[in-house]
């Protein structure tokens, strides 16, 4: 019941916030929303306590019949991966809500809607991470589009309706392909012993290679759009450039993770051999994403687009780690999802605070901010350094695990991906240089530094980023046991350690 409760609380909270009477300044809505999100966080911490690391596998499971005719169950349960992602969601939501405190200050009438949608998004995201029935997963996966659609289109800026529609249609297209695949699975499962969408039942289906590959593609394309992976990424910059910081965080840090999460939990487990079949292409695409996203980030003129493109690059790493099929890289990928969530949240929120002050998202409109707003610039730098995976900050651990794991699978791919590290330094530092350093211009000289509330909102993320950089083990010990079964499902498992005096392997082409 705990998981259902965890979904219900923010959902009910959203409802309450939506139905609250509109107040002059929207304060009540904010307090209620933040309160609900903190309650959810506390509940998720209790969840962590309940979760037994020793046992592994899916825990806290519950299962109720939902649609008898289809064999659909309201089935929830988490393994370490799901738990990590739920934790990410519940941690980020209060941060986002607190940081978005003034987002609707100029339009207090719509504060309720804004905060309600954010809470609803949290609830749906938790549901997706906890679903063990593919139908439930799909329903909630698609349902997340609605809050985001309204958040982008209704509460964004600039070309918001264009961005919202593009976001929705692009994601829906992928979702519908997945729908086709799920229908196929459903028919197959029926033919092989009764309709069921439960992961456990679906994992053992007999399929011809072609069927499996086609079904896999349906899932994978949906997830690749969501993630987003090159070349299906173009909705993200547009959406990010139009959305509020809070929306961006929920979108990129949480909802986009559904893509990579889905790849691990559904693609790999349901279609192991098709995953193996696709892996070479996916790996190459992942590396392309890494480099492409990084290069594009260098070339962006808008802060939010830049952050969006860095995410494309980071998602490349995550996908790389997943499809390298080593327990090291996959554990890295899962950790990466968490860390990227934190980092990008921090980046988007700081950037949002900058934009709120300057009224422009263009990098060229800034300069010298560091002098007047040292705290802000410090936080931006920290977020940037996290984004470029500086050792000592959380993302480094995950990125390195991904690279190390991938390296033992394929040296050229890992080597190419490593170039992303350099490019990351370029885009982050270039952005920092252009916005924070140099002489002040007349528009930035009145810049306010971060207020205590803003610092307070960001502090948890900062603490986590630094803390997990040095002590990632608490999370890894949750993730690691969940990864091994996945790896065991796919192919031959971890590649063996390279044999001593091993000359057959492609020995080093790397001293360029």
């Amino acid at each position, binding site marked *: 019941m705990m998981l259902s409760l965890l979904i219900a609380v923010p959902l009910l909270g959203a409802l309450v916030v939506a139905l609250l009477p509109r107040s002059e300044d929207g304060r009540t809505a904010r307090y209620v929303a933040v309160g609900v999100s903190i309650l959810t966080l506390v509940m998720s911490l209790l969840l962590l306590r309940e979760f037994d690391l020793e046992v592994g596998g899916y825990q806290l499971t519950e299962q109720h019949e939902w649609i008898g005719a289809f064999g659909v169950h309201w089935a929830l349960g988490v393994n370490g991966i799901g738990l990590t992602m739920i934790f990410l969601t519940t941690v980020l939501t209060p941060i986002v809500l607190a940081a978005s405190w003034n987002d609707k200050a100029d339009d207090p009438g719509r504060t309720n809607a804004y905060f309600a949608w954010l809470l609803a998004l949290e609830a749906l995201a938790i549901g997706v991470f906890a679903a063990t029935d593919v139908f439930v997963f799909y329903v909630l996966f698609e349902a997340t589009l609605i809050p985001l659609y309204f958040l982008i289109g209704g509460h964004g800026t600039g070309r918001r309706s264009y961005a919202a529609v593009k976001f929705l249609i692009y994601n829906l297209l992928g979702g519908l392909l997945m729908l086709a695949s799920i229908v196929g699975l459903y028919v197959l499962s029926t033919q092989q012993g009764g309709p069921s969408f439960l992961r456990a039942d679906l994992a053992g289906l007999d399929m011809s290679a072609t069927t499996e590959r086609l079904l896999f593609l349906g899932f994978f394309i949906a997830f690749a759009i969501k993630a987003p992976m*090159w070349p299906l990424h*173009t*909705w993200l910059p547009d959406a990010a450039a139009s959305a509020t910081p809070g929306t961006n965080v929920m979108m990129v840090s949480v909802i986009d993770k559904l893509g990579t999460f889905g790849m691990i939990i559904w693609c790999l487990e349901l279609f192991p051999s098709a995953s193996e079949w696709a892996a070479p292409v996916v790996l190459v695409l992942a590396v392309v994403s890494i480099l492409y996203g990084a*290069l*594009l980030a*260098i070339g962006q003129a808008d802060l939010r687009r830049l952050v969006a493109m860095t995410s494309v690059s980071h998602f490349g790493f995550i996908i790389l780690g997943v499809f390298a099929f080593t*327990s*090291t*890289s*996959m*554990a*890295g990928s899962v*950790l990466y999802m968490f860390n990227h969530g934190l980092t990008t949240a921090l980046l988007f929120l700081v950037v949002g605070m900058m934009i709120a002050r300057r009224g422009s998202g263009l990098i060229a409109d800034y300069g*010298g901010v560091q*002098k007047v707003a040292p705290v802000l610039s*410090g936080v931006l730098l920290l977020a940037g*350094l996290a984004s*470029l995976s*500086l*050792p*000592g900050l959380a993302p*480094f*651990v995950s990125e*390195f*695990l991904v690279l*190390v*794991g991938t*390296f*033992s699978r394929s*040296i050229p791919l890992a*080597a190419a991906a490593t170039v992303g*590290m*350099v490019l990351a*330094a*370029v885009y982050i*530092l*270039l952005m*920092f*240089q252009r916005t*924070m*350093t*140099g*002489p002040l211009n007349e528009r930035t000289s009145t810049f306010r530094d971060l207020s205590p509330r803003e610092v307070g909102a960001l502090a948890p993320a900062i603490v986590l980023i630094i803390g997990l950089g*040095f002590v*990632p*083990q608490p999370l*890894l*010990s949750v*993730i690691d046991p969940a*990864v091994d079964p996945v790896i065991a499902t796919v192919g031959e498992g*971890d590649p063996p*350690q*390279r044999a*001593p*005096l*091993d*000359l057959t392997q492609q*020995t*080093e082409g790397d*001293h360029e």
Partner: protein
Amino acid sequence: MLDLSWLLIAIPLAGAALLLTWGKESDAFGHLIATACSAASFVLGAIMFVELLGRDAGDRSVTTSLGTWIDAGHFHVDFAFTFDTLSSLFVLLITGVGTLIHVYSIGYMAHDERRRRFFAYLNLFIAAMLCLVLAADYLVLFLGWEGVGLASYLLIGFWQHKPSAAAAAKKAFVINRVGDLGMALAIMTCFAWFGTSSIAVVNDQIDTVSGTVATALGLLLLWGACGKSAQFPLQAWLLDAMEGPTPVSALIHAATMVTAGVYLVVRSHDVFDASPTARGFVIAVGLITLLAGAWIGCTKDDIKKSLAGSTMSQIGYMMLAAGLGPAGYAFAIFHLLTHGFFKANMFLGAGSVMHGMNDDVDMRRYGALRSAMPITFYTFGIGYLAIIGFPGTSGFFSKDKIIEAALAHNVWVGIGALVGAGVTAFYMTRMMLMTFFGEKRWREQVHPHESPSVMTTPLIVLAALSLFAGVMALGSWIEEWLEPATGHAVHHDPPLPIIVITLIVLLVVAAGVALAWLAYGRQQPAAEAPADSEVSFFTRAGRAELYGNAINDALVVRPVTHLTRALVWGDGKIIDGLVTGSADRIGEISGELRKPQTGFVRSYALMVLGGALVVLLGLLAVTLA
């Protein structure tokens, strides 16, 4: 006591954290806290060093683990630190020189409103550097490695309001990152072949893998070392890094950070022992950088840049020595230490000069400072003697050893090193002459004065060290001390008797000094630098840093910029264009498809009849086909 290595790191780290988070109240005493932290670390390091001294030679390595850092999949890394003979020397150098620089900075940065932050960064740097040298695992080393990069980024760009400083900081970080690429790949290689990245295990088991792997690993490590130590081809950041406050130049670019590469090579000596090819590359890199740095040093009028060129060059010596294998490791470290002293001394001296000259760095505007800044002059002079290898000074011993070993290894390498020594003498003499001798070429309103004692005291201490650090070479102490860490040194006999070599070296140095005196002592250098068109190619190239930036621009920066632009264009026009384009196409098709909806009922009827025809034909076709 010896298992307190982590505390060495923790103290300055705590200092940094404290200063960064503490508010404005700590402005008044923040620098003192930082200095105290650094000093505490030094004291602790010294005690541990003494304790190590007291142990048997075979027992002089203590590894302590703080616990697991990462354990995922098959990857396991402990937060482990090794305090052994090699790292102990580094600890002393880093904390010692570091503390002196802290002290010096109290004076140098006295008027900077962000001084507290500066000291926080200094502490951060010390912590990172200690982490680097104490690490027992390559990944932990990497943590310090990048931490050093970060600290140097922050310090170089400390005066961020200067666009040049910000750009230089970014450049340093990015080029360092390029080097880190090699480092990261090296660690991955370790993991792939040894299943661990523990330095000890890798060095132990390097014999179990093929030569190719060892070579690759060596080259990757060298690649990393090149980035951090500003060795060819990743040298371009070092000269720009002089944008930072002078203590930073002293700390980072003389004593510590840039030596990390040498440390890495020495630390991984088994890898290089296993691969002569890799060693060959190390020598080549060292030699090229040695000469290039010296060349640049000869042509720069900016005192700090000239010193930076000299640094490159000296580190080239160390690299060269490290590349010589077991014979050279100890000499590399020895030179590293002495260089740490005298170069720090000289950088701080330069800072002192600048302090007196209103932050002017142009040597052509100096002259005759001998009397205006006597302490600075004398300490700087000692450093000068040390670097050119004046007999009896520390530099004499350390550099001589390297040249000998190089000659023993290969005549041409030796000759290269020898030439380097001559050139070093030339440019250092030039610097000396232009700064302290000759006539005043000061700008107006410049009133040179001696720096406060808080700045001169470190100078004096460093000068003393520069002078007397040669004692370490007595009775091959340094070689024996390092033996547990670097293995037993096997010396080859040089082609000439040692005394002859020493004489030749001295002769070459003297020639360099003489030449410099002819060019800059006998006649006054012009107050304005001659334009590029008036100088020889040699000078032009040196001023342009041997076109390193131009080459980088042409080979990397510009292609990447163009690529980025092309990709941004392509992303919008092609990839997104496909998406929006197909959406537009659907819109157009929609417009076309609504045309048959003419509003004429007879057209609709035609559609119905036509449809009926098609349905009939279809049915027949399906069945009869």
